[in-house]
């Protein structure tokens, strides 16, 4: 075999296994996941054809090329590929081709067969989120779509609703001690939940990481600190305007907060640049707690989103995904995978923007997992499956589809398409 030498043999071009390509119409993008070099060719039918062949199993992932032709586009492609070490050319008789191992990610036995004997929900579950109680208080009304956009303990509810703690315990107990599964307990105000006192003792039996999600202000902080003593647990506070910032300032003064800072998350919900500026000071005043900012789309602040959330083409190209990230994003949705949300009435969702996958009162977590795997819309929602991302040259680079996109029913949070 001779690489890249001109003789009577036929020349074949191939891409290295760490190189990815996307062909959209006559446009081509080639990405080297090692050195993050991006090669782009627009409106080039001949290059598009060649790159398609390098992904074609029928041709052994080798594209026959004619080096004798004075084709500038071809010369430039070869030169770009070789100089960036993204591909190469071999010269050989057509009946003596090498075997190019062109990787394509595969999850073994996925989705599992419906009568797979050893189906185990543990293999898929990451977090089970319970909304233990829900009210139509001010927070729930003002931020009624928050839970559809990011995880948030509140959503709009008609009247007070509560889930029996027994339901939570029974649903989770098959996963007791299983690593890689977390339980998230939330509600419009957990401190008012009727099962709050029996919770810690029961939850300890599960031996699972716990996160309690609560909005601030909170009426009974003593109870919150009690919850934080429940085994391997964290507290996640949600701060909204106008009352949240002062409540945060207040709670930060408490000795328990100071003592347990590393086990506390602060989530700021903002709707405008002004609110962002206001929380900057609060963030700077913070200690060792983790802080997160969630822009909240209220239907009127599209401009704020376009300015601060949407990505420009260059932002996208600078994301420089690893080979592993590209594999992952082509098979599953990293954001949404393995999560189940259960409302106080037992209705369960793999994502609150999608249809229900069952009711915990009528089945087990395992049934919900099966339903999402076989009939669901969320866990496997990759960009290739939606428009316009599926046709976009840059789809390898983008982060997985998130709740914002599902809620706003717009997948291209960018200026590309």
């Amino acid at each position, binding site marked *: 075999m001779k690489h890249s030498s001109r003789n009577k043999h036929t020349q074949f071009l191939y891409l*290295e296994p760490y190189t990815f390509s996307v062909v959209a119409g006559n446009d081509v993008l080639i990405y080297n996941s090692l050195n993050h070099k991006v090669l782009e060719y627009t409106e080039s039918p001949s290059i598009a054809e060649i790159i398609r062949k390098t992904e074609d199993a029928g041709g052994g992932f080798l594209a026959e090329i004619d080096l004798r032709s004075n084709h500038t586009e071809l010369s430039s492609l070869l030169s770009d590929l070789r100089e960036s070490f993204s591909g190469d050319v071999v010269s050989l008789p057509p009946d003596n081709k090498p075997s190019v191992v062109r990787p394509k990610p595969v999850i073994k036995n996925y989705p599992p067969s419906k009568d797979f004997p050893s*189906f185990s929900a543990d293999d898929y579950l990451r977090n089970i989120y319970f909304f233990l109680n829900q009210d139509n208080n001010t927070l729930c009304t003002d931020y009624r779509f928050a839970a559809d956009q990011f995880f948030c303990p509140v959503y709009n509810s008609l009247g007070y609703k509560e889930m029996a703690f027994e339901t939570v315990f029974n649903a989770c107990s098959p996963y007791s001690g299983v690593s890689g599964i977390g339980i998230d307990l939330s509600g419009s105000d957990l401190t008012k939940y009727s099962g709050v006192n029996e919770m810690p003792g029961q939850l300890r039996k599960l031996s699972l990481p716990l996160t309690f999600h609560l909005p601030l202000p909170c009426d009974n902080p003593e109870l919150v600190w009690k919850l934080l003593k429940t085994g391997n647990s964290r507290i996640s506070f949600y701060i909204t305007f106008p009352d949240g910032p002062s409540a945060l300032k207040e709670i930060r003064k408490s000795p328990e907060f100071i003592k347990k800072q590393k086990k506390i998350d602060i989530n700021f919900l903002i709707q405008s640049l002004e609110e962002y500026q206001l929380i900057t000071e609060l963030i700077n005043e913070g200690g060792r707690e983790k802080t997160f900012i969630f822009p909240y789309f209220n239907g009127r602040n599209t401009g704020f989103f376009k300015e601060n959330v949407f990505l420009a083409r260059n932002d996208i190209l600078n994301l420089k995904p690893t080979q592993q990230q590209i594999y992952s994003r082509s098979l599953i949705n990293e954001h949404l995978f393995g999560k189940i949300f259960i409302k106080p009435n037992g209705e369960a969702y793999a994502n609150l923007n999608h249809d229900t996958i069952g009711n915990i009162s009528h089945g087990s977590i395992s049934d919900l997992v099966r339903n999402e795997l076989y009939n669901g819309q969320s866990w496997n929602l990759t960009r290739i499956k939606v428009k316009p991302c599926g046709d976009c040259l840059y789809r390898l680079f983008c982060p997985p589809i998130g709740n914002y996109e599902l809620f706003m029913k717009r997948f291209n949070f960018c200026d590309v398409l």
Partner: protein
Amino acid sequence: MKAVIPFTTTSGHTYFYSPHNKQFLLSHPLINYFLSLSEDDNYWDTAINKDGQNHTVKIPGHGNVGRVEFQYYLRKFHFLKRHGFFKPVVRKNHEGIILPNRIEQNLSQTKQIIFETTEDCNLDCVYCTYSKFYFNKNRERNKIGTGDALMLLDLILSKRRVNPDQELAISFYGGEPFKNFNFIERIVNYIRDHKDSQLKVKYSLTTNGLLLRKYIGFLVENDFELAISLDGDEFANSFRILKTNRKPSFELVSRNIDMVRKKYPSYFDRRVIFLTVRHSRNTLKTIYEHFSSKYGKTPILSSITTTGVVNEFQEEFNETFLQSQLPASDNNCYVHELFTSHPFVSETAELFERYGNFIFRKPKQLLNPLKKQKDSRKYLPTATCSPFDLRLYMSADGGIYPCEHISRIFELGSVRGSKVDIDSKRITGTYNTYFGKIKKLCSQCYLSDTCKECIFNTGIEKGPPVCEFFMNKNKFTSYLTGIFNTLEKDQLLFARIRDEAFLAK
């Protein structure tokens, strides 16, 4: 340390495998030439860089290379080196041991209980492990003790943490299990009457097919998975002879199978599988042609047991049964038709699964990729199953074994005279002693990631273990070369393995 493996196929194509990056690259011979050179910096600074200035450089085994080409591949070599392709990886630590509590845990969640219903059989297969060729106690006419079996079953069910996701398989094996049908019926009824409503049980049975006509109704009624041992067409099956008159069993068995297919077509499609032993009277071609044309199925293939053969009969055994009598071309025959049942496909799929970086065993692996940092885990040597994790086998004489395929000299416990003896400490002691004897070999093996060896098949009871799959760097290089020789001849095969071999069945 496991180093990079350069290899050249018989067609002259050069590749290398990077254990660090888990990738197979088609490479220019110059890359493999650079790989063969000393790591000594002085050498690179002087000899190689000097070579790069020459008009042409003579590369052993490749011929002359122009300066531009030489310099390009030198840069590419350094690029690949920078990105870890030639970095050796630390071999897996095989110091792992099994602790007694693991036995308890395994018993409480075992996936399968296999009962050797009876030692009695109505066939007298020439290659049977009870035949003259194997070390084995003489076959008695032992039937399994029903009371003892129920006692074992009760013990396991009492320990079992009921998980609605996990089925328990109960399997009946022999001898010929139908020769003790009452036992099968008793166990099925017992489970029906006593099991926890959340416990899911499925049944399977392995038969030679002679008594199918009599019992098929019961199997259908209880949705048994039915595995029929059949080696192919009449000639292929001619080692399987009737005990009563030494005549071939093929005709009778085939008639019974045809009856099942006709009377229960849906059951036949769904629940009947065939088990075929490969030997000198069948080929992949005849096997495929027989089963696909007659039943529209591909069988599960296994090789004849080559361990435990009596020295006195070794030569006769080899001449009578071994595949080496067959043309090598048979090995790649019907590869697409048999596909995952084909030994080459299953082996290559396993190679890419363990040695490539693009086959993931679980979706969560994509979310939490294993870091390339030093793996400090201690692995168990060989591929021996953790005792009772997958299955537990109870022989007709009350012995307890980790599976049905290992010699009776490795009895781990027993259920005899209404007494269950499963001593976790003794069992783990046996395993850990054996592991201690073989771990050094495993730590030197390049194939340890796809190990197929069971500690009980290594002759470990007699002395230093001998692993038939052991590969040092040279053997592993030849192994990869062999696989790529075949993949090169069939350009569609790699993609088909990648795209289809890992789909859920």
